[in-house]
């Protein structure tokens, strides 16, 4: 009585040879087969184009950045602390730009992760279905607000508020940028965290409740740790969203190319620099190539962030 023997006997009965399928003489079957192949080909093209596009963007970006890196006098200035692209000789110090991007992004994440994860826990664990149906779309709408509008809000409402609150010479600071970017990263973080928390099996919750934990204890000690990799991935994507945002930071951070020593000073981010200077730069000049170097560095940073997010979320799937 070996179950294996039984199994093999059954499979022998229902095995279908592929030849018998494709050799079926009916005309309809041949047409079906043909359309199947066509659609396979089309899907292959779509996937291929996507990959090729990314590779081409990557190549073009670095092709335009290389001339500056080859130019020893100009590339020596890349590590300096000033960004004076139109001086004579020009100084292309990336340090203040990278520092500006990092401080604004860091601030945005510190603000938006607790809010986003909190909202996600509320939506998936606490809220009644009716409330959830109203709140979830409302948060998604936040993602649909154009960045120019958010930037305008930051300039007109937030900047004066921050200026008066901290008695600053100007309200266009890293903090202003961080708050506006937090608004924009919030929907991403909330919806992905919520998915992660919702996929934690119900029995975890039930088990911890039956062991005498309160709902809050169960959420804090069981559910959130179980969904942690998903929350981390959400955070990573939020960082990617914040670091790549252009229009908003261009409007609210003041764009002064200094290395910030606090959140209350104006900063200049990499994205804002590219957007502000691309318009008037002479094609083929050192300044033009320098902007591509900035773009390439930014691309590498976001690439690494996405990669980490991908690895983390894959690990999350393995846990299940």
């Amino acid at each position: 009585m070996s179950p294996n023997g039984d199994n093999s006997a059954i499979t022998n009965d229902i095995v279908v040879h592929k030849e018998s399928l494709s050799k079926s003489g009916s005309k309809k079957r041949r047409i079906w087969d043909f359309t199947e192949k066509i659609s396979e080909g089309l899907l292959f093209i779509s996937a291929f184009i996507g990959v090729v596009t990314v590779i081409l963007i990557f190549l073009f970006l670095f092709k335009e950045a290389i001339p500056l890196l080859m130019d020893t006098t100009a590339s020596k200035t890349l590590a300096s602390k000033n960004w004076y692209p139109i001086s004579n000789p020009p100084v292309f110090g990336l340090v203040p730009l990278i520092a500006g991007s990092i401080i604004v992004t860091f601030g945005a994440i510190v603000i938006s992760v607790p809010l986003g994860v909190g909202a996600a826990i509320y939506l998936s664990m606490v809220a009644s279905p009716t409330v959830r149906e109203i709140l979830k779309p409302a948060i998604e709408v936040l993602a649909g607000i154009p960045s120019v509008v958010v930037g305008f809000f930051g300039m007109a409402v937030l900047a004066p508020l921050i200026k008066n609150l901290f008695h600053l010479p100007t309200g266009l600071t890293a903090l202003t940028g961080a708050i506006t970017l937090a608004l924009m990263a919030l929907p991403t973080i909330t919806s992905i965290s919520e998915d992660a928390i919702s996929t934690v099996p119900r029995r975890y919750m039930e088990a911890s409740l039956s062991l005498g934990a309160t709902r809050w204890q169960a959420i804090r000690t069981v559910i959130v740790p179980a969904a942690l990799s998903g929350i981390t991935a959400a955070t990573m994507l939020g960082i990617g969203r914040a670091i790549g945002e252009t229009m908003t930071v261009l409007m609210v951070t003041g764009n002064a190319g200094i290395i910030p020593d606090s959140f209350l000073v104006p900063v200049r981010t990499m994205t804002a620099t590219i957007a502000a200077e691309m318009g008037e730069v002479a094609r083929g000049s050192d300044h033009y190539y320098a902007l591509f170097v900035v773009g390439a560095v930014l691309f590498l940073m976001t690439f690494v962030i996405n990669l980490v997010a991908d690895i983390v979320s894959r690990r999350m799937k393995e846990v299940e």
Partner: protein
Amino acid sequence: MNSLKKFSKVVALAAVVGLLGTVVAGCGGSKQDAAKPAADMGIKGSIQVKGSDTIVNLSQAMAEEFMKKNKDASVAVTGGGSGTGIKALVNGTTDLCNSSRNMTAEEKAEIKGKTQKDVKEIVIANDGIGFIVNKDNPVKELTMEQLSDIYTGKVSNWKELGGNDEKIVVYARETSSGTHVFVKEHVMKNKEYRSDALLQNSNAAIVKEVEGNKGAIGYVGLGYLKDTIKTLGVKKDAGSAAVMPSESSVKDKSYPVSRPLFVYAAGEPQGVAKAFVDFILSSEGQAIVKKMDFVSIN
């Protein structure tokens, strides 16, 4: 069946390779037609005008009016910066070049070498730059040197200039702006801007910031001076009288921070280009200059 699969893959690959081909070909850069010979009868044909972003809107408005009057002529205006326009003139990819700065001797020589023609310089308008501070700031006037010291960071507090004990917050335009370059060359004598200067994308943004900021100083085009902010008088040096920026003081060059705006051509403009330049210099064209907040030349 296997051959079918292969076939579809081949088709797909062919399509992608074809696409790539077009992309790569597109990267090669398109060559524009060189200037067409002028038509003998009436004003017919098309010209390219390239250059300064300071002038691009003005030029656009001029071209629209000009084309309304001359149905068979077309004038295509693009920005990109004075340097870009001058480069295009060297390469023969534009008929006229807008520039908010004087062409250098080297650039003129380069064009002469390439086209065997002398550069023709036409002043089409004047532009003045006003320095503005907050309404509550007691400072009324500054010398060119003081302005330079503020923008280079040598002076950081208003009390050093006879104002309140207040940190100076310096607003400037982005490096892509012709005005940024003009102030740097003209006022600061090519010294560096202080690194914590707040670079703004538009005149309007500078005005808005100065309105709400007691320690602010900024610079804007003549058309942006208004009552909600205070415009400073500028002295050439400590001994001379302060001059307020205005249409008349820019015209008679008594206001120190003013500049002419140019159109350049390689050789005498012909055909449509000539007609367009004549239109710019006519009273009709100069009325457009006024409307766009620049200062007319007549």
